[in-house]
């Protein structure tokens, strides 16, 4: 049995068997759903278990465990989607949901159920094991305590340490009207450390963490986790020394890794298929045109082993892929789900994602990053007479239609005469998506992906994502500090 068939079998076993649902019941559900003029219908079975543990004031004071399970039922006709869901995994409730979802297509007709179910293609990017069960609860507590000790040991100015650990074990099964069955078992772990340092009556925060689609065991390998503790302290201490940031347009050098949130906000959302099909994106109709400097190539890649944004199959059963968005500065393609790909007459790209069974899928990013260029990062810094060097960021946001995006620095420095000098306090950077990458003048040779911390929100749905980039020099980005 190949991997994807194996995942389908595992998903059937944990989702369908307990509910007494077999091939005949699936056919009946799809038959009910497909009555009328429906182009595509699917059932999304999901079971997810989530746990979190959190430490503050030196103690793990709270922990939580949650279980969510249900089925989302969707019918698509042209540009219309009918959707209903049920958290009761029993046939009558599912038939009712199917009836509600198909109401989108005005007139009933004969139902078309697949003759034969077949397993779709899929990748094997992570182990299907349950991360929650991968470590004894006592050891989870001990791990958080170790993080806190490591952070406190760094510096007496550390006043508060907050650390948290979380894991998700998720099993999904997608049943499609074209007869394809796709299954996936998705692990996800995440650790976070927040430190507050105090000196001379001033308090500043530092934050670090990481994770991915693996179990706690991988997280425990090497020195990674205590490294996050040291990194959070380092950032808080840097910020204790930071002066107010400058305001105005200037040259900005972005560090490698997480600053790739620039790509996610500035161009990523604008290249999602739905906004382009509807013509509401600032990038609509720009395929084949220059949107970046020639040294810039950006991809969205859901196939990286163990990364937070990776998926064996997307939430519509399409295997993920590496999609080239911008190649040598020219816009190449959009990210698509099934519906938008069909309506735009292109192939789906494995970007159909949803927060849960209770949400409709839509085109979403996976791991979005820029490929490495040819410049030594030291050479990039040395080339700047006066500017900002931003190495860490909080969140970002974009207005898809106007293309204006922001992202907020949590660690930044001034560059003066080709040298990194003083730290400055976090400023928001703002720019225009369709032209910001044309202002890229140097691309570093130091591509890094983030540590596995990103969560993307769109239309009220959150999904885990990854970003990455090499060191970049951008000429003329507006820095939102206070010093004029």
């Amino acid at each position, binding site marked *: 049995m190949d991997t994807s068939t194996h995942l389908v079998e595992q998903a059937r076993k944990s989702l369908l068997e307990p509910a007494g649902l077999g091939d005949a019941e699936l056919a009946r559900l799809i038959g009910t759903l497909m009555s009328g003029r429906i182009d595509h219908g699917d059932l999304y079975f999901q079971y997810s278990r989530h746990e979190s543990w959190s430490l503050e004031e030196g*103690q793990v*004071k*709270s*922990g*939580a*465990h*949650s*279980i*969510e*399970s*249900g089925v989302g039922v969707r019918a698509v006709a042209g*540009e*219309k*989607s009918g*959707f*209903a*869901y*049920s*958290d009761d995994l029993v046939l009558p409730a599912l038939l009712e949901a199917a009836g*509600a*979802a198909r109401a989108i297509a005005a007139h009933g007709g004969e139902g078309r159920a697949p003759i034969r179910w077949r397993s779709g293609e899929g990748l094997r990017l992570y182990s299907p094991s349950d991360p929650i069960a991968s470590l004894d*609860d*006592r050891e*989870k*507590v001990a791990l958080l305590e170790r993080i806190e000790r490591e952070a406190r040991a760094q510096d007496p100015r550390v*006043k*508060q340490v907050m650390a948290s650990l979380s894991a998700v074990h998720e099993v999904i099964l997608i049943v499609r009207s074209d007869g394809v069955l796709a299954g996936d078992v998705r692990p996800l772990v995440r650790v976070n450390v927040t430190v*507050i340092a*105090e000196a001379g009556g001033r*308090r500043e925060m530092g934050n670090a963490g990481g994770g991915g689609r693996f179990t706690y065991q991988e997280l425990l390998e090497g020195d990674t986790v205590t490294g996050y503790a040291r990194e959070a302290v380092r950032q808080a201490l840097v910020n204790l020394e930071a002066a107010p*940031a400058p*305001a*105005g*347009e200037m040259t900005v050098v972005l560090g490698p890794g997480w600053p790739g949130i620039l790509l996610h906000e500035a161009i990523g959302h604008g290249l999602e298929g739905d906004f382009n099909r*509807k*013509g509401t994106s*600032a990038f609509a109709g720009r395929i084949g045109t220059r949107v970046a400097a020639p040294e810039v190539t950006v991809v969205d890649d859901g196939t990286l082993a163990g990364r937070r944004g990776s998926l064996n199959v997307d939430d519509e059963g399409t295997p993920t892929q590496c999609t080239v968005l911008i190649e040598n500065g020219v816009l190449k393609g959009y990210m698509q789900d099934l519906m938008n790909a069909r309506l735009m007459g292109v192939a789906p790209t494995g970007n159909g994602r949803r927060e849960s069974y*209770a949400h*409709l899928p839509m085109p979403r990013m996976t791991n979005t990053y820029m490929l490495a260029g040819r410049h030594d990062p030291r050479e990039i810094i040395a080339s700047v007479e006066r500017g900002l060097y931003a190495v860490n960021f*909080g*969140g*970002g*946001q974009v*207005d898809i*239609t*106007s293309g*204006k*995006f*922001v*992202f*907020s620095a949590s660690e930044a420095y001034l560059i003066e005469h080709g040298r990194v000098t003083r730290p400055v306090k*976090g*400023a*928001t950077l*703002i720019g225009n998506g369709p032209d910001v990458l044309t202002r890229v003048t140097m691309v570093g040779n130091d591509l890094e992906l983030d540590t596995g911390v990103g969560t993307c929100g769109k239309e009220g749905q959150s999904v885990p994502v990854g970003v990455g980039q090499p060191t970049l020099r951008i000429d003329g980005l*507006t820095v*939102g*500090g206070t*010093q*004029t």
Partner: protein
Amino acid sequence: MSATEIARRDEPVFGEPARERLADIAQAALEEARRQGVSAAEAAAHLSQGLSVTVRLGEVETVEQTRDKGLSVTVYFGHRTGSASTTDLSPAAVRDTVRAACAIARYTAEDPCAGLADPDTLARDIPDLDLLHPWNPGVDGAIAIARECEGAAFALDKRITNSEGATLSTYEGVEVYANTHGFLGTLAGTRHNLSAAVIAQDAGGMQRDFWFTVARRPGELEAASDVGARAARRALRRLGARKLPTRRAPVIYEAPAAASLLSHFTAAVRGESLYRDASFLLGALGKPVFPEFVRIHEQPHLKAGLGSAPFDNEGVATAPRDLVREGVLQGYVLDSYSARKLKMRTTGNAGGVHNLTIDPGPLGFEQLLKQMGTGLLVTELIGFGVNIVTGDYSRGAAGFWVENGEIAYPVEEITIAGNLRDMFRGIVAVGADVDIRGNIRTGSILIDSITIAGN
């Protein structure tokens, strides 16, 4: 929507039997917890149902039927605690959930502040706050309203060239909270929402904006055609937006944007931020935080208010109170846990504030523009550049440049930055144009000076 359509009061989906079932589930969870030997426990169970319909370019785009349920349980063994939740309300799942919470409590540390709310703080009389106004327009009815709404936007001006659609959604929910002090409270409510997001286009490019109306009573929703037309006017007025030169200037936050300033205030006076030393308002109790004319208060018992609640998430009685009087901070936003950490008393804010209101001043929006004279009017903020630990503030903004009290031209791709401590003290006036479409009620806010970064 026509008056006859919205005057109808539909029957609740979740009547007495549903409420009794929820109460039984919560009690069953507490019963199982007792069997597991807990010293205390609390359980919250909920059911909800809704319909959401989106029309785009005159055609139905999505019809979503939503139906949720859930149970969450927190158990205490002395001062050790654990929590668990489930979307499966079957007896077996309830039992497993309680056991999962108990399993976690075996590994958490002794925390003397952990526990249920003190019995004397729990709500005794539960006032009817008129929160339940079921409305079932049906799928066809909902489509008609959303279509009318979007249609009004396109009818307003031919530069409205595209749309993200108009959405009508209705929601009804019921929740039960029970704890082993013997408290059991039921809360049922509705919320109905109509919104439109449209795109205006000219030779210079595209601009998007939106408008929405939300109410517990369907009859209080703004007319569908007004919502669409207002979304259109908001998008149109942004056409031709430009950057501003970097400078300092006074700023008016238009009422919907001003609510975010008050949300930063509540984040800074939350017990959680305070006991962790993670607030720029640490130690500000009894001290001036705003100018003398500012009063900020909670109104948890407003009839049909969006943020109204007779008790909080721990069963604690809510009560109207001042958070800021004559500019001076009078109280924090506390639940039982953070109150104990701070050696104070809970303020009934487990789960947040209730209809937080800043008293409006005498000036309407136009007069506020006149008072500012020349400066920035902010209508939209993007990004997360707010640091509650330090008060440092830097966000992306769009809006209008105002000259001599008149809107001169739209602006975009700028940031506004300052420190919230200075921005709060720098409030010059609060407008009479109160926006009540949320849990924070404020008029537009004029602040004396802020740094604008542009070109």
